[in-house]
């Protein structure tokens, strides 16, 4: 571990990528994450890295695709409307099985929406966004420190699965300053990509050319290709689920499911309620794809638990996954707000008390 320093989330995310061994960054400015580019335009030259400001998020998506296809470790950061534009490329990247890391510092939507924190891109991140059958592995940090660690983990995971990985933060994660440490042990060497990347036959000492593509005109081949992709998503579900339980040892009457910034407010509400003698448990998904189905189900079916509330900074998106994994075994409620007005602990306490 290095020493603790106070850093803004967006800058820490940029630094984390460098510390993870990613020296290639392509991006387009958008609030509330432009500080990543402003930070990396200075840092990348210091480490001999690549910084390119693309002409649009559409182009940036394909710069990422090209660079990744050529075998480089590469990432970009953006915010909701920008990620919509990159979603076309993300579909191609998943289809062509290239590793890449996308950071979405979510702002309010739909459309231009607003520039304040939101979790309104949960569907976009976990259910597609672009066209076709694909998934990203999606991690949702609840602190700047966790954002750093997730960014560093994202690169080896993207390479393990040859698939895009997304860090799903929100404006608060990007904008707030917190003490962070950059764990040295999360630095990884890029994997060998000679078997598939277009790195030039000469460089990899091969006489076989490599092809990076997502086109399969033969229906049987395309079906087989999709089955191969599905096998990877199934493997993610088996191996990559990450979550954090909070106050789940006692006899809680209500279980909260909440992620990212919102889960921190819920944690405070749970602490306040504990002082009043009310026990509330929480499961915080750290990966939202793959979703922690089993941990949520196990925590919800505890005898003391009467109901589950999904609390999100959106109009009810993750709640659909909570309902799906509970299969009607407990009533599932939703509470949320969007627009950037983050619910307060007192507000959450009221919501919980209504369900007691």
């Amino acid at each position: 571990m290095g020493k603790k320093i106070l850093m803004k989330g967006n800058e820490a995310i940029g630094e984390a990528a460098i510390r993870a061994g990613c020296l290639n960054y392509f991006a387009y400015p958008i609030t509330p994450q432009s500080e990543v580019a402003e930070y990396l335009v200075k840092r990348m030259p210091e480490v001999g890295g690549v910084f390119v400001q693309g002409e649009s998020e559409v182009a940036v998506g394909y710069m990422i695709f090209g660079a990744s296809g050529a075998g480089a470790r590469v990432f970009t950061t953006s915010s909701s409307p920008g990620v919509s534009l990159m979603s076309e490329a993300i579909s191609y990247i998943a289809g062509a099985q290239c590793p890449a890391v996308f950071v979405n510092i979510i702002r309010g939507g739909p459309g231009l929406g607003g520039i304040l924190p939101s979790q309104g891109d949960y569907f976009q991140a976990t259910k597609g966004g672009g066209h076709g059958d694909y998934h990203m592995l999606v991690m949702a940090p609840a602190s700047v420190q966790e954002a750093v660690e997730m960014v560093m983990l994202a690169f080896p995971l993207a390479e393990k699965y040859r698939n895009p990985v997304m860090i799903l933060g929100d404006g608060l994660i990007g904008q707030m300053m917190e003490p962070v440490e950059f764990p040295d042990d999360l630095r990884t060497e890029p994997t060998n990509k000679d078997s598939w990347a277009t790195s030039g036959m000469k460089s990899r000492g091969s006489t076989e050319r490599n092809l990076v593509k997502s086109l399969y005109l033969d229906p049987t081949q395309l079906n087989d290709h999709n089955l191969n992709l599905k096998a990877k998503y199934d493997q993610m579900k088996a191996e990559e689920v990450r979550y954090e339980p909070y106050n789940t040892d006692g006899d809680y009457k209500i279980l909260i499911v909440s992620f990212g910034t919102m889960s921190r407010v819920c944690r405070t509400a749970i602490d306040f309620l504990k002082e009043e003698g009310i026990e509330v448990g929480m499961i915080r998904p750290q990966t939202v794809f793959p979703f922690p189905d089993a941990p949520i189900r196990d925590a919800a079916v505890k005898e003391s638990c009467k109901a589950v509330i999904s609390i999100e900074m959106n109009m009810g998106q993750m709640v659909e996954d909570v309902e799906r994994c509970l299969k009607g075994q407990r009533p599932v409620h939703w509470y949320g707000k969007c627009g950037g007005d983050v619910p307060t602990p007192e507000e959450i306490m009221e919501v919980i008390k209504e369900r007691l």
Partner: protein
Amino acid sequence: MAKTFKKPEALSDAHTHYCPGCTHGVIHRLVAEAIDELGLRDMTVGIAPVGCAVLAYNYFTCDFQEAAHGRAPAMATGIKRVRPDLIVFTYQGDGDLASIGMGEIIHAANRGEKFTAIFVNNAVYGMTGGQMAPTTMPGQRTTTSPAGRDILDTGMPIRMAELLSTLKTPSYIARQAVLRPKYITKAKKAIKKAFQYQMENRCFTFVEVVSTCPTNWGMSPLESLEWAEKTLLPYYPLGEFKTPEQEEQDAA
């Protein structure tokens, strides 16, 4: 007896899917010859477009990536920036480059990205079945301009070579054709030059190639060549619009 004419090593043995009389095959060959003659095959990455040449990766034997419609210049940027030692080229049609990919080509050219764009202009969308392209001539009939292109409604055809020549950064911009052997020789020269400039680490290089589409023009291959020469060449003049040598002369 020694072989004096053979298939370039950079071309595969695959039969192309191109229609009879289509000039993509000729342009593929010119690119492959340039790659062979410069000894670049094992360090080249090509980028296939969406359009008739979507399967170009089956016909070349170097590394290849396949782009989304219009995005080849952005992909080439990504590859070349992380691997400046590779030779990178895009191969794009007029719908791909001059319509949906206009933003990508202009900005890649303006940043001076060090790859080569081969732009095949046959004044029509081919793969989707003959719709109007930004390069379609006034009055030219297509499936989306059945009465002929109405310039009052759709504007005049875009001249990409001239448009890109207004930018300061690109090093080489040329337009040639493959309508007769005399043009083909010049097209080959331009393509090879573009790759050579890229090897010299010069900024963006671009060769537009005036081509034909007998199928979607509803003409025989021969009629297509004649029509292109008569109709396209006066509007799309051939030649070099920008060269590093000219640039140096102007600066001196």
